[in-house]
């Protein structure tokens, strides 16, 4: 069974996860072979798809769980948390 790494992050970005942070997430996610999901308030998004990430509608302060599995899962999860915790305007 493939181990899933779970990390939590709180959205720091003042305007939430709109298109620009979504782009940053996807740009980073596609560099990893790991499967990366973002869970927020019962919704699940594929971190490789901007449209999927934007459907989270994650606002400032929202709590997101990063679920990563497969190759480099740990590094992928850490990178996602780093981006989610950055205020990119």
């Amino acid at each position, binding site marked *: 069974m493939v181990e899933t790494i779970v990390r939590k992050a709180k959205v720091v970005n003042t305007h939430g996860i*709109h298109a620009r942070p979504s782009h940053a997430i996807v740009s980073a996610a596609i560099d990893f072979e790991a499967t990366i999901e973002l869970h927020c308030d019962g919704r699940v998004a594929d971190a490789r798809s*901007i*449209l*999927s990430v934007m459907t*989270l*509608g994650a606002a400032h302060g929202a709590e997101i769980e990063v679920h990563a599995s497969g190759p480099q899962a740990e590094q992928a999860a850490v990178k996602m948390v780093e981006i989610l915790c950055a205020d990119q305007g």
Partner: protein
Amino acid sequence: MNYVDLFSEQTVLLDLQVSDSDSALSAMVDQMASNNPALAERKDELLAALIAREAQGSTGDAGVGMPHVKLAGITDVSVVIGIHKEGLDFAALDGSLVQVFFCVVRPEEGAEEHLGLLRWLAGIAKHEDFVSFSVQANEAQQVIDLLSELAAA
């Protein structure tokens, strides 16, 4: 707010006859300006903002682009849907050509509602049939009906 109400037949460009994404944005800005007098004098500013915004990171994905900016001094959200049958290079991260554009201009205030609108549009856009149905539409109302159907799905 019922987001479908933002769309009317005047907000749909069924068949963009352009060959690059900047021209597509320009056509959508022209349409927005003809729908909303508050934007008529600010077309150049709006187009430049949209192009600059996309240069920071493409909003294209899975055949859909969602170029959007905020603009000081306006009070209402403006939207235009632009459809390009063959698809245009919009520097999408997934490498897809963009066939359907949702162009959104919003006031400086109302970030929360804007996030809600983008989430709503993205939910419709990632439906597997959205792009293929959109490019087959012969009338603007068919596109609006599609939004209503997929929003309810």
